[in-house]
Each structure stands twice: as C-alpha cells, then as structure tokens.
C-alpha cells in the first residue's frame, strides 16, 4: 500500500535553495577508528565532514594507555629497560638506546667504543626496517594491498633475524645495558650485518623503481597534507616529518651522541612537506643509513662491549634530574629522569614520545582535504600507538 505523502515528509524531500542560491547542506560527523585498519592501532579521529571535505578533526587517543611511566617509577632503573621495548615496538633498539643514554647522562657512565659502534649498527638497522615498513604501510593505506609491504617485510625479516641472533628476541630486543650492550656481536653476526648492508641498496633501487615515479603514488601524495616549515618547528615536530618540511635538524648531527660525530653522512631535506616528501625523505634516509652502516661495520674496533664498572645490582644514581634524547626513526625520543635521595628507582620517569607530539598538527594537515586523504596523511606521520598512549 502506498502511503500518501504527509506535509512534513513532503517538506523534507523538497530541496529549497537558500539565500545564496545553493541547496542547504549540513556537516556530518564521522568517527574513524578506534578499530579501523588505517589508524595503525587503536586510535580514533573525530572528523567533521562537509560532503567529502574535512572541516574539523580531533585525534582521540589513550585506548592503549597503561601508565608506563608510573610502572617504571616503581621499578629499579634497569627494570624498565625491557619495558621500553613496548613503547615503539617496531624499534626496540632505539628505545633502549634513548633510555640507556639518559641514565648514562645522569650517572656519568662512559661507554666503551666497541659498544658505541654496536649501538650505531643496531640503531641504523632499526631505522632501515622501520622506514621500509612505514612506506609499505603507507602504500597499503593508498590501496596497494600487500605487495609493497611484503617486499619491505622480506628485507625486515633478515634484519630481525640478526636482532634475534644478537639479543634472543626479534622485536622486544632488550639488548642495551647502562654502559654498553648485553652481549657482544660475534664475527658471524658482523658478517651478517655486512651482508644485509650490501644487499639493501638493491632492494631500495627496486622499491624506488616501482614507487617513486609511480603515477598513482604521485597523484595521491603530491600537494596533500602540506606542513609548512615554521609550523613544523613551532609544533615540536621532529624526525623525518620535520625534515620533509625542510627543517634542518637531526639529533645525530646536532648532539653527536654516541660515535655519530665520526661518520660521514648527510641529512636529506624536503621542499614543501607534503605526503610525497615524507615518503621520499624516508627513502633517502635509508640510503644515508646504509652509508653509516658501511662505515661502522668497516671501523668497528675490538674491545669490551660493556663498561665493566657499571653494577647490574644495586645500581644507584645521585639525586637530581636530566634529559637524554636520541634520533629515533620516528623523531626525537627523549627520557626525562629524576632521581631522589634513595637513588634506587626513578622518582620521575617521563618519555617524550615522537609520534604522540607529531600528531599535534594532524588537524592542520587534514583540513580542506578529502576524507580519503586523511588516511594517507596519518600513514605518512608514522605513528605507533604503543608509544602514543604509553
């Protein structure tokens, strides 16, 4: 039976133009996430859409919050070393390094040279596998299902095998100790690292051939999510994201922590800071990482792998505070630590997570773009929720 149109429904279906001659529309609120594959974990974006265009976007986080900092404040200094692995679970080596560096700064521990070289090798291998996988994930967000990601994972696998041989674990490495690393690299592991370094450029060439001038990638990524240089500095953006916007700031160059002062490498910079620049800066950074790895593996000296005077048990730090930071693959990873009179546990333990702070300007980058672009803009920020939520 056909219902006759009532007055109200008739009114509803008649589109009357507004005073400007256009049909009146209203915005639509869409919640992307927290269970959405493109948010790379449990992360939510509250979008307000006008048609397909984003007019407001608020990141919502904390779904994975476990109060990492408070847990660390209840443990001995070394106790939270394995727990730092779980921050950015892609790069446990650099997380370990940031924490070890901060503690060494507070306690004034000097690290033997071989240990510094091993740290550089591990950190740069982490950077290689992180950047390769991030590009893979970003392409996945673009709709290139599987292929680029699995190409990247094929290479990552070889690096993780080396991590497993050295530390006993593939992702949760827990490899660094205050004053050095837990176990020495033997000749076979150094040879494996050399082999990975020698073969990686071929993979990169292949990767670039498929992607860098790919028409779909260019069309979807260029002029999307532009982050101006001034805003990038003002909003404390760090890492590849800042450098894609042309901010010449690399902590490896500025602080010269470890033995980074000895290596010859360049800091690639982007021009406009769109998604494409953020993709390409990672490719270029991988090439520089290979350069560092070649030098480190060539020059690695013999000697102790950990400072022998550092006590594992009853390790204490004099009262006071300090901040140590490293250039993690995602940006500036820092630890702010406070020690009190007892000195056995951190009185305050604060993580400065790069991907959390890099999300500050997510709204600015997404405004005016289509909702489909939000997904790749987020992909190009490179977040890991273990670190964002802590």
């Amino acid at each position: 039976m056909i219902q006759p149109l009532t007055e109200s429904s008739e009114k509803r279906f008649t589109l009357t133009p507004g005073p400007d001659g256009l049909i009146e529309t209203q915005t639509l609120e869409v919640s992307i996430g927290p269970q959405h594959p493109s948010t790379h974990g449990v992360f939510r974006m509250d979008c307000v859409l006008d048609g397909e265009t984003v007019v407001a976007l608020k990141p919502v986080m904390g779904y994975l919050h476990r109060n990492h900092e408070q847990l660390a404040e209840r443990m001995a200094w070394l106790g939270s070393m394995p727990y730092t692995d779980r921050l950015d679970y892609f790069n446990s080596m650099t997380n370990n390094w940031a924490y070890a560096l901060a503690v060494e700064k507070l306690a004034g521990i000097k690290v033997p040279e071989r240990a510094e070289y091993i740290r550089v090798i591990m950190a740069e291998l982490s950077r290689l596998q992180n950047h390769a996988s991030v590009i893979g994930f970003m392409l996945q967000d673009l709709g290139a299902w599987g292929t680029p990601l699995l190409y990247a994972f094929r290479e990552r696998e070889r690096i993780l095998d080396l991590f497993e041989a050295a530390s006993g674990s593939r992702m949760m490495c827990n490899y660094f100790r205050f004053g050095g690393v837990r176990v020495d690299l033997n000749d076979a592991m150094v040879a494996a690292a050399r082999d990975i370094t020698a073969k990686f450029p071929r993979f990169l060439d292949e990767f670039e051939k498929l992607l860098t001038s790919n028409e779909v990638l260019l069309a979807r990524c260029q002029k999307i999510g532009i982050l101006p240089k001034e805003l990038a500095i003002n909003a404390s953006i760090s890492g590849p994201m800042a450098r894609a916007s042309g901010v010449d700031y690399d902590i490896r160059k500025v602080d010269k922590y470890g033995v980074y002062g000895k290596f010859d490498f360049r800091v690639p910079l982007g021009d406009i800071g769109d998604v494409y620049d953020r993709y390409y800066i990672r490719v270029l950074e991988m090439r520089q990482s290979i350069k560092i790895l070649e030098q480190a593996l060539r020059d690695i000296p013999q000697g102790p792998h950990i400072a022998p005077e550092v006590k594992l048990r009853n390790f204490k730090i004099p009262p006071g505070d300090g901040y140590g930071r490293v250039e993690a693959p995602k940006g500036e990873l820092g630890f702010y630590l406070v020690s009190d009179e007892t000195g056995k546990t951190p009185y305050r333990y604060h993580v400065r997570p790069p991907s959390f702070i890099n999300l500050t300007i997510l709204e600015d980058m997404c405004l005016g773009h289509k909702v489909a672009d939000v997904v790749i803009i987020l992909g190009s920020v490179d977040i890991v929720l273990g670190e964002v939520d802590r």
Partner: protein
Amino acid sequence: MEAIEKIKEIAAQGVAGAQIEIINSTPAAQQPALLVDREHVYAVAKFFKEDPRFQMDFCSCVTGVDYLPKGDKPGFIEVVYHLYSVAQKHGPIVLKVRAPRELEQCHVPSLTPLWRGCEFQEREAFDLYGVKFDGHPDLRRILMWDEFTDHPMRKDYAPPADYEWEPTPHDETLQRAAEMHGVIPPTSMAELEKAKKK
C-alpha cells in the same frame, strides 16, 4: 651556549621583576635549570623564544613532577619545559615552574600560545597531574577517559579497588576494598544476589 649564571642574568635583565633561581641537575648531567615564578614564566619563555641570542624556537619536552611535602616543607607540582633552538642548534634551556599541590590552586600559565608543540603535552600534564594551564586553548583529558576524576601520576594517588572485575577476588584485593570502603565485598555471584535482595 653561555654558562647558566650568564643566561640567568640576561633573562633577569630582559624580563623586569622575574624571580629566577638556578636548580642543579645531577652532577654528571650538567643540565642546570631555571626556576621561574608563576607570574613571569610566560614572559621569560617569550624572551627566550624571541631574543636573537637564544632563539629557542623548539619546545621539546613538557612534563610535570610531583613532590610530596617533606617535613614542614610544603609539596608542589613542578612543570618542566626543555627548550632547544633549531635555528642556532643549541640547547637545552630547562625552565621550571612550581605550583601548589592543592587542585584548586594548581594553576600555571600555558605556553601553548608560544609553542604549538606544548598543546598535547600540557594536556597530558593536566590529565596525569592535575595542573591547570591558564590560556590553553583546549584543556581536556588526553590519555585517561573523560569521565575519570583523579590524576593518576600524583604520588599520593590510590588506585580504585576494582574488585568487581575479578571473577574470584583474592585476599589482597578484598582487604584493599575493605580498607577503602569499610566493607568486605561479596565474593561470589550468590552472595552478590543476596546482597542485592537485601
């Protein structure tokens, strides 16, 4: 970068009336901080950002630290800012500002108008420590859920005795619940039903 005494002198000249005090880090870390009073911290931060000798354009790390009262010394919440300069590639200058621990008085001026990068980090300090940042554009909880009422990183925070989530509450949990609420909670579904009927 100049020595910390020199920096303090320059800042005191640049901002009239600011009370600045030097606080040392651990002997090895060599990162002495400047403790600024609450009224002048914004002006001092602005001075460091705009003065051509410093150009601290990058506010790297913002965090709170809770110090409980010790003896007759009152406790306080300290907010720590680590400033770096991207333009001149130096740093850090560590700014500290202290506020009383009582929630109503725990206010400090927000530095988000100077550095956008403080936005989420100050929200986090508010969420976990209960510091109210005056002048923050969007001061909401960020990691804890909105309905949460406490500030969990404070040193005197007591976690709730959430025994209802455990299928079989054990001795410790029951004791904690009894201490907090003065009652022993029902331990089985049957007891719970009974308690409800009453």
